[in-house]
Every structure is written in C-alpha cells, then in structure tokens.
C-alpha cells in the first residue's frame, strides 16, 4: 500500500471507530444538553448573573437616594433615619446622610465608593437623557478618530518606557512632511433622536458588555460619544477573540489525545500496529480527522465573527502544535488521571505562551512571538507580511514537526505498552533517537533539534519576566536561559547514562560534548538567522542570543557546559545530574553576565 492510501484507510477507520464509541450513547444526551444550554442561557439573560450580589452594604436615609442603587445588585440597601445610620455607621460600607456620602476607609469602602460613583453617573445620565433639550444636558460630544502610527517601536524595543516625555515649552515639530488637513466638519453628524436613542441603550454599564459586543462585531467608533462613554481602545479587546479561537481547538485536540491513549489501554492498539502500514501512516491517519475538524471549527468561528479568512493561516501551526503535544501526552501518560493533569498543565503553559505576548500586539516587537498576534493584527485589518508569518510560526512548525517525528518513531509496541514513569518514558523516547551505531551523529542532531524547544522555553521566561524591573529581569533571564540550555544539551547524555552506561567514558564524553555543543550552535544559528533576527535587535534578545557575535566563544561555552554536566554524570552517576546542570548553568550565566556587562557598561 502506498503511504497516502494507508493514511486514508487509517483516517476513515479512526472516524468510524470514534463514531461507534461516541455516537450512540452520546448524541441523545448531547442534544438534550444543548437544549438545556439554550434554556439556561435564556434564564441567565432574564435573571442576570448573580456573582457579585451583595458585596457592599449601604445605609441610606432617603428613599429617592435608595433608588439610585436599587438596580445594582452589588449593593444591599438599608433604609434608616440619619441618627441611627450615624450610630451604626461601622456596620455599613457606605452611608448617605442628607446627600453626603461617607465611606469606610478600607479597600472595600473605597471600592464601594467607586461603584457608587459610577452608579450615580449613570443615574445622572439617565435623568439627563430624558431632558427635552438634549444638547443642554449633553452639551459636549466627542468624535473619536484613530490614527495609525507609522513608525515602529525602536524605543520600546530597547526596553524604554512607552512615550517618555520631554519637558519643553515648545510644541514638538514632526520630522516628516506635514499634510494639509481639512478640519472636521461641524455639521451634526447624527440627528438628535438617534443620539437620544443610543443614550438610553448604553445606560447600563455592564463591564463585560463591551466584550460580548466585540464578538458580534458592533463598533463604537462610527458615532458620536459623550465624554463618559469614552472607553480606552485597549489591545486587550481583541484578546477575547483569542479565547474564542483557542479553547475549541484545544478541546478538539483532547479527543485526539484520548484516541492515542485508548490505543494503549489494554493493548487495544496491537491489531493496528500489526497492520501492514507504516507507523507514520498510523499517526498521520489518526491525526488527520482531528486536524480537519479543527480547521473547520476555526473556519466556522472566523465566518461567524466575520473576520478575514487569512487568520486561518497563523492558526494552522497552533493546531499542529496542539495535535503534536496531544500525541506525545497521549503516548507518555500512564493513567487517565496523569493524562488529565499533564494536559491541563500543558494547556495553561501553551495558553500563556500564546496569550501574554498578544497583550503587546501593537506596542512591542516581542508580541510577534505568538501566532495569535497575527490573528489580532488580521482582525484589526492591518494584516501581516510573509516575513512576520515566518517569524511567529517557525517555532511552532519546527516543534510540531519534531514532536510528530518523535511520536512516529516511538509508536511501537515496546514504548506504547510500557508502564514506566512519565519522565522515564520521555527519556525512553530520547534514547530511541540515539543510534547505537552512530551515537555522535545522533547527539549532534539531538542537540540541533532541541533548539526550537529551548527557544520556546526561553521566550516563555521572557514573557514571564517582562514586567519585573529591569536589572532584576535581566539577571533572572540570564540564569533561567542558561539552565534551560544546559538542560537541553545534556538530556541526550542523561539518556545514554541511563540506558547505555558503558558508553560513558572520558574519551566518548569529550567527543560527545564537542558534537553536542556543535549541534546546538548550528541549530541555534540556523534558526536565529532564519527567523529571529528581529527579536535579537532588542536588548532582551541580545541576552538570549548573546552568542551571535563570535562563533568560537559560544562553541567553547556550549562544549564546556556539556562537559561539566557530563563530568558530573560520569563521576556521580545519574544522581549527580541535577547538581551538574546547576553547576553548568552557573558557569553559563557568568559567561553571559560578563558579556552583558561588556555590552551595557
């Protein structure tokens, strides 16, 4: 059978099988649940969400004042006369006596005061909206216009504060030629009736409302606003779409994870493994239906949100990444509960990696680390270039392909049905990758293949330390980057020390360290030159990828690092592995710090 036709066979078989295990029992209940969901949503819309009910107690001496907060369920209102309110003032968060507002001087009191002020604002607004002379009640209207900034963010790249001011009395003069602009016309852009109508509509200030309207594609910029309606145009707005896309995709990848796991439970996959098809066909064939479903889901959401279909492009590597990880997790977990915990853990980390950089979608070049930034850009209508696509998706493609390769290579009986621990199974997988005939070539390739994972981990630390003050964040970044790199380089040696202790001689260690260092360097440079040149321009990048300048220095460093860890392994056995990594990490950091010192001073 050719590879393609066997992939097809496996894919069809996979669909049929999941239909038969899931279909019969699930469909009726799923339909019932869906109906219930509709009913419950309607009920919730009717009754409102009662999460923050009764957070604050407010004492009021006047029924008219009480009416201001009557519709806000966050307040529990007590009506009493002024004297007894004054007496019991400490059992309330806020008391209002004769129109004077008193709040308890605690965080809670201040928060209550804030909420009350907002309620009062919307109360005043609702009174004003009923005025016959609308333009006396709302004398000021804002026409909000957005301008695209044309320069990129060289200042923020070097870690400077956004918009650092220069104290001058003179107005700044732009360096680019000034275009003639006609002042905005002062004709009424909207009629009085329309304005009044939207004032009544926007009366209730639900904090989450702006996000729901975002998905349904409503926009607030095409009409006039009152000053209190101005809400900041935060990049966070588009983030909600990220959640809309990522969670269904992640959820679907769970089915693939489970399907892989099911092959292992009770050796169910034995028949499949003995079929006359290659392992690659089995894995790809099994993954294909899920990949298709995920693409369809993403496309459906895109169409529903009326977003451009180009956002599917950056989602493809994300889908592949989810599937690749689902494959590995499904192949390594020993039990269902391990599967659950590991996948929850993975999803949190993956989501943070995808989510946090997008917060800086428009301010910092770091944001391009996440493919979802491209989604945000595409939704904004800015689009992205092929180069940016390469930058932000290369790591995802590379890691997915490597993980799929590892999965396929290990999709064999002895690994699928073993009952070893998670960590030792991972080492198993790595150990499979080390050829007994050409161990040094394997170590070289292994080191090179570790690079995308190292970069991903380092990017995550970069995001993690992003908002820690500058010198400390640099130090932490240097330390963690060093430890991550040393770990990645030595994992191959560790696998050898475990499964093939006889190999670990002084001579072999020297050669092994050299090829590992070389492989690491080659992989690093390849990926760097191909993709991350942009990030290396920032000061953060120069710490992570410091070793770009001269080639022999980092090579020596990498070799030395592996030698230190390898030496620990050689002398102290596997128990000495962790101290070895720490020692190598310290040496590595010192080297890096020395260089940063040179760069900064």
């Amino acid at each position, binding site marked *: 059978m050719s590879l393609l036709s066997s992939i097809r066979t496996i894919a069809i078989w996979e669909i049929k099988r999941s239909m038969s*295990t*899931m279909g019969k029992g*699930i469909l009726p*209940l799923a339909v019932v649940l869906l109906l*219930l*969901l509709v009913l419950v949503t309607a*009920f*919730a819309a009717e*009754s409102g*969400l*009662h*999460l923050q*009910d*009764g957070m604050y107690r407010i004492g009021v001496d006047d029924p008219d004042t009480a009416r201001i907060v009557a519709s806000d*369920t966050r307040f529990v209102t007590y009506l009493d006369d002024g004297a007894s309110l004054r007496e019991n003032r400490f059992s309330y*968060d806020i008391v209002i006596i004769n*129109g004077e*507002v008193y709040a308890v001087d605690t965080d*809670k009191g201040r*928060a209550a*005061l804030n909420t009350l002020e907002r309620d009062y604002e919307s*109360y005043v607004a609702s*009174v*004003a909206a009923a005025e016959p002379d609308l*333009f006396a009640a709302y*004398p*000021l209207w804002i*026409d909000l*216009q*957005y*301008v*695209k*900034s044309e320069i990129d963010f060289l200042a923020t790249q070097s870690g400077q*504060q956004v*918009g650092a*001011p220069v104290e001058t009395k003179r107005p*700044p*003069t732009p360096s*680019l030629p000034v275009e003639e602009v006609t*002042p*905005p016309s*002062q004709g009424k852009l909207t009629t009085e009736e329309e304005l009044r109508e939207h004032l009544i509509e926007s009366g209730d200030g639900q*904090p989450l409302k702006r996000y729901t309207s975002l998905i349904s594609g409503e926009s607030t910029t095409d009409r*006039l606003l009152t*000053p*209190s309606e*101005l*809400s900041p*145009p*935060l990049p*966070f*707005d588009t983030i909600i779409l990220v959640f809309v896309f990522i969670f269904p995709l992640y959820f679907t990848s769970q089915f693939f994870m489970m399907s892989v796991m099911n092959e292992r439970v*009770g050796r169910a996959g034995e028949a499949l493994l003995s079929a006359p098809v290659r392992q690659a066909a089995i894995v790809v064939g099994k993954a294909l239906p899920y990949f298709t479903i995920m693409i369809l889901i993403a496309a459906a959401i895109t169409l529903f949100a009326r977003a451009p279909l180009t956002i599917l492009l950056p989602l493809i590597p994300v889908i592949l990444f989810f599937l690749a990880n689902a494959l590995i997790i499904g192949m390594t977990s020993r*039990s*269902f509960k*391990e599967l659950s915990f590991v996948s929850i*853990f993975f999803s*949190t980390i993956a989501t943070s990696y995808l989510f946090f950089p997008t917060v800086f979608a428009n301010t910092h070049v770091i944001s391009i680390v996440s493919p979802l930034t491209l989604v945000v850009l595409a939704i*904004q209508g800015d689009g992205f270039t092929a180069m940016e696509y390469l930058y932000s998706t290369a790591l995802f493609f590379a890691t997915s392909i490597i993980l799929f390769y590892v999965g396929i290579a290990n999709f064999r009986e002895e690994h699928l049905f073993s009952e070893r621990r998670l960590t030792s199974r991972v080492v198993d997988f790595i150990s499979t990758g080390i050829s007994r005939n050409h161990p040094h070539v394997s170590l070289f390739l292994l080191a090179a293949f570790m690079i995308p994972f190292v970069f991903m981990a380092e990017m995550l630390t970069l995001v993690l330390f992003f*908002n820690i003050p500058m010198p400390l964040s640099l130090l932490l970044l240097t330390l963690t980057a060093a430890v991550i790199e040393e770990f990645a380089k030595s994992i191959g040696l560790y696998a050898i020390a475990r499964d093939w202790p006889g190999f670990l001689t002084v001579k072999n260690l020297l050669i092994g360290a050299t090829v590992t260092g070389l492989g690491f360097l080659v992989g690093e440079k390849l990926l760097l030159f191909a993709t991350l040149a942009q990030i290396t321009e920032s000061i953060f990048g120069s710490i992570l990828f410091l070793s770009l300048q001269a080639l022999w220095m980092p090579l020596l460093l990498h070799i030395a690092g592996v030698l230190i860890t390898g030496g620990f392994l050689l002398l102290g056995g596997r128990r000495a592995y962790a101290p070895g990594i720490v020692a190598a990490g310290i040496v590595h950091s010192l080297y890096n710090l020395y260089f940063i010192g040179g760069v900064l001073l």
Partner: protein
Amino acid sequence: MNRRHINLIAKKEIAGLSSEKTIVFAILLQVFIAMFSSFLMVGLTAMYDPESIEGYSTVTYRVGYAGAESPLIDQFAKRDDLILYRMDLGEALAALRERMVSAVVYVPDTPPDAEDPVTVTLYLIQNDLQSGVVNVKIKEVLQDYEEQLREIRADRLIYSPVELNFPDSGGGESFFEFVYGLLIPLLVFLPAIVSAALIIDLITEEYQRQTLETLLSTPITFTEVIWGKIAACEVLVPLQAGAWLILLWLNGIPVNNAMAILLHVSTSGLVLILLGALVALHYRERTSAQFIFSTALVVVFIFVMAVPYNPLNLIVRLAVDSIGPTHWLVLALVAAATALLGWAITVYAHRVGEKSP
C-alpha cells in the same frame, strides 16, 4: 458499606496520585499561575475595568490642541500629567503619527451657550497601550468640561437629579472588586472542577483497563470502591482551595471567613464530583464521559450563576465579609442536594455492581 473499605480505596487512590507525581503537576500549575499573578492582575483587571490602567502611569503626556480658543484649554491647564500644545491640525496629526504627542484634540468655534452641542474631535493612536492611558486621562478632562458646559446651559434643563456629595476618594481602588468578585470565586472553585474531572478518570480507568474484577475479588463491594474514589477526590478540594487562599494571602489579599469558604467549596465540589461519578458510571469510557460532563458543567454553571445566593456568590460575600448567618441555610440546602445525589449514586452503583460483578 464498610467505612474501612472506603478508607482503603481512598488511600489507594491518593497514594496512586502521589506516586505518579500527578499532584506535582497540580502544584506546579498553581505556582506557575501565581508567578504570572502580577501580570494577570494588570492584564485581567484592565480587561475587567480598563480605567484602572491609568494608575500604572506616572508619566506626563503631550497633547496637541487645534482649532478655536475654548475653556477646554483651562481644563487641561489644571492637569499636571497632560501638557497641552497649541498646534496647527495638520502638524499635530503628523506629530501624533510620529508619537511626539499622545493625542490631538480639535475644538470647533461653537460658543459654550449655543443651541447646538460642542463636538470635539479626539485623535488617538489606534489600538495601543499608551492610547488607553491617555484616553482615560483625557476622558476626565472632557467630563469636567462637560460639567462646565452643563452649568452654562443649566437654565435650559427641567429635571434635577438627587444631589450627592462624594468625599475625595483620591483615585480608584478597582482591584478590589475584580479580585474579590471574580478572581477569588474562580480560583477557589478550580479545584472542585479538577476533582470532578479526576473522578471520571478514576472510574473509567477501572473499566477500560479491566482492573475492576481484581478489585472486586476482594471483600470490597463495588459501591465501596466508588465511594472510596469519591472520598479521595473530595479530600483534594479543600486542600487545593486552601492552598489558593494561602497563596492569595501571601500576595497581600486577605480573605475573610476562610473556613466557611472551604466548607462551601467542599460541599459544592462534592456535588460536582458526584455528578462526574454518575456520568462516568453511565458511560464507563473516558472520552464520552468527559465530553458529556464538561458540556453539562457549562450548563450547571450558567444556571447556578443565574440564581441569587448561589454558592459562588456566597464565596464572594464571605470573602468580603458582608453576609450574616444566611449562608448556612444555603449550605444546608446544597448539603441536602448532595445527600440526595449521594443516595442516587449508591443505588446506581449497587445496581451496576449486581449486574456485572
């Protein structure tokens, strides 16, 4: 049912959890989220209440002013965090594009007491963190100006709202509502959901790995096995929720009535665990059970949130210490529901156990 047997099973499951180091992942997860907490605070609070980000900025911003002379200039002069520059509109917009100013306002020559409204045009940089901060600051200026214009046109108004005089609060404290009203109930309930997913894994695994027969060849009955697993999952709920409360406390977020909160979470968590057990007993296969359970979970959560005095709301109220003994009543109700579900599980498990030993 024999309590010793249940204990035995529960101990076995917990030992399994710790020997597999899965619990390590759960702890790592908590630490990981806690590490992100500062970022989470800034990011999520800003999502919840965009105006809070103003507090993060101590910088002064430059604003370009174009158009006619107006009292708005004096309003800007009152602010020390905004510097106003009179500029030509074209020049100002060019400067904005180069980020030499952070915003541009264009004011028409409409007199303050005119029939028509004053329509100010505000130019900001599109979708940018800094614009968010500037927007909030300018909003305050414009609101003051609106107030001023309203006073000028006051004789044309007929309604008068109730007057309230607010004390000078000195800036917003908007973390509070987000942290206590959203973050705490979610974090504290997370372990309950995790445990409910865990019971499905524990039960379906016995079926799919066909280990049930070995287990039942001992004097332990099927019902006892199920209850043992439920007990193991239930123990984790207050432990993990308590860990969250301690982490929050270490982060400087004290939570009131911690014991009562843990009681509520444990009881409601038990409802979820029992639901999970019921689904798992019905399907005996993980994929189907998890799928149905997670869909059902969404339904249950939306429903519960729509009911006043729901357990999540009670956790909020308890955390900010603004509820009296009423919550014990709700706790009793939830406990009654739990007992009912528990009875249903016992009967169901008994029937399943009889049919397939």
